[in-house]
């Protein structure tokens, strides 16, 4: 009895001293600021900063390889708080948001067939491309809305996805989800935006969608030298040049090229028709 007690006591003393030794010798000094900075970050782990989650960004900020501005989820005040705490510059990382290259809601775009099946754009695309008359256009079944963890996308009353720019962190999930490849990520300073991907031209396009680009080329003419070029019947904005040219949208006859303003959303030019329809576009599917 006493032998067993003594043996166990000796063993526990041995292991305890090993633990103490390991704690002393193998101790790693972690910068306490990493944990504190991690607490100050939003904790969405969206990955938009390019680091694996918020902890990854916190480590990078503390070792100086990234600035708090990398985080697009925080507002300016929160960003400044982190910058002050770490004693670094806040960094002027420009806010990037997802933009949809289609404006064809059910009020302006025609459906050619009625789709029945799984409630998903990806599934609908595989059934003869979905029911939309325009092959390139948004199907409006909301795969992007479902995939967005931050609730930054909702479908409006015409089943067209709307991006809430304040909530969007440019994580890119909607870019991957859209089977028609309509989403892309752009800095908010890209005011000029072509909201159409239809590669055809002329009246045939307008029969399918009233806000499609009919490739008239007026925007390319109005924009100063080479900012907009027509490629495959679509205007392409060269964002490496000075693209702050609002007059490019003014003569667009359909409103396919728009001007994104921070609070008002997309604005069409003066020549674009105004739509007041609430229901779907007249004309039965054929």
């Amino acid at each position: 009895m006493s032998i067993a007690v003594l043996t166990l006591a000796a063993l526990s003393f041995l292991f305890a001293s090993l633990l103490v030794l390991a704690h002393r010798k193998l101790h790693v000094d972690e910068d306490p600021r990493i944990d504190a900075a991690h607490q100050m970050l939003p904790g969405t782990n969206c990955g938009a900063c390019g680091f694996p989650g918020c902890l990854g960004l916190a480590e990078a900020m503390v070792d100086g390889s990234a600035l708090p501005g990398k985080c697009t989820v925080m507002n300016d005040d929160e960003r400044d708080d982190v910058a002050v705490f770490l004693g670094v510059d806040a960094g002027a990382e420009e806010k990037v948001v997802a933009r949809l290259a289609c404006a064809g809601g059910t009020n302006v775009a025609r459906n050619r067939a009625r789709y029945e099946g799984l409630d998903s754009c990806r599934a609908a695309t595989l059934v003869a491309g979905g029911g939309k008359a325009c092959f390139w256009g948004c199907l409006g079944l909301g795969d992007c809305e479902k995939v967005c963890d931050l609730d930054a996308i909702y479908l409006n009353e015409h089943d067209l996805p709307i991006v809430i720019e304040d909530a969007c962190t440019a994580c890119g999930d909607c870019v991957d989800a859209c089977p028609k490849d309509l989403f892309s990520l752009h800095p908010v300073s890209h005011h000029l935006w072509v909201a159409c991907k239809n590669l055809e031209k002329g009246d045939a396009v307008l029969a399918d969608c009233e806000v499609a680009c009919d490739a008239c080329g007026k925007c390319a003419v109005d924009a100063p030298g080479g900012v907009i070029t027509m490629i495959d019947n679509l205007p392409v904005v060269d964002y490496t040049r000075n693209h702050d040219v609002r007059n490019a949208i003014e003569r667009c006859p359909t409103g396919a090229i728009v001007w994104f303003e921070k609070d008002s959303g997309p604005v069409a030019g003066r020549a674009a028709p105004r739509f007041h329809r609430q229901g779907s576009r007249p004309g039965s599917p054929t």
Partner: protein
Amino acid sequence: MLNLARKDSFANGIHPPEMKDETSHLAIRRFPFAPLLIVPLSQHLGKPASSVVRAGQEVSRGQVIAEADGFMSVAMHAPASGIVKKIALAPGIGGNMIESVYIEPHPASSQEVEGGEACDVESATADEIIAAIQSAGIVGLGGAAFPTHVKLKPPEGKTLDTLIINGVECEPYLTTDHRVMLEQTADIFNGIRYLLKATGAGESIIAIEANKSDAAKKLQDECPADLPVSIRVCPVKYPQGAEKMVIQSLLHREIPSGGLPADVGAICVNVATTAEIGRLLPRGHGIQERVITIGGPGIKRKGNYRIPIGTTVRFALDEAGAAKDIARVFLGGPMMGPSVSNLDIPITKGTSGITAFTQAQIDEATGHKHIYPCIHCARCVEACPLFLNPSQLGILAKNEEYDRMVGEFHLMDCFECGACSYVCPSHIPLVQYFRLSKKMVRKLSAAK
């Protein structure tokens, strides 16, 4: 004695209504030329053909308008004498936009077919026959549109012993192969001569389902004595017409998972494809028309028609007298045929029929039935001809567990026959789930 006990069939499968009586007795009739024919440059699996004509050019019927671009590609021929209006994008069956040649036929033309270099079965070598099949633009006319010349060349180290001519036509409503067997019997035997020489196979079997006994009898009566051909009649069951199933039924050989018919020494060619080879190669012509069945309850003048490639579905329906309220149109039959979203798409080499239904008939058959959860009744498991587990695959697809679908449940072997969806009492759109999952698997593996 043993053969009597062993039925020429496969396990599982289903028995949908055959619906072939309405058109199976109607002889093939020639279809008028549409005012505008749209010939897509990609009508087959593989690389699109490259166009050799330009807008404004006059073409004569049968002239080559696009040449094969590489081995996985076939030539295209002008379906009518006329003028090339433009080469532009046109909507395709998959709802995608495909580069196509628009041809306006001359109304007064005699529409003589321009001949090319004839390929004689006696003097040509195997490689010459394969090359002639490619330049005649021949693809699998059963629906898959796989370039025929590609599968005639067995992979390195494999030999083909049996050539199966597939005249099963298990898809409801379609009767094109049936009519071709009755009306082009000599062409079929001629085609078999070419195919046997090209593949080096020693014997050939024509597979027919029991509901086409008149065709089987005609083939049996007219079979040339010197040709190693046997005609086998299988019991009616869907999807017997699938390559894997017909080989299982006739030869009792199972193609390994992910394998090809060549792995079991067999090659399977559709009967209409064989007839076209036998008809076109001796004359040096190319495919510029094909036989389709226009049927279904929404059609007034049902029938089997020899229709120019590039005719739009809208023109075909107008000529065949479609009901005013047709609501669903399938290219092919209703089991595997894709439903179309646009009536202005052209009929291509892979289109074996047009089947149209009105809304009332669609509602009666499927209604707007609610999708219920899987009750694990295993009817789909009993229906699947490949012994897959559609129930489990459906649940995994819903949860987007694509790795398990491929690794554990062999998703990629599924050929989307639709037997599981047909029998599902919960109306789960299983095949749509599988198509979506396959697409996602390919997308994810391409990203890696």
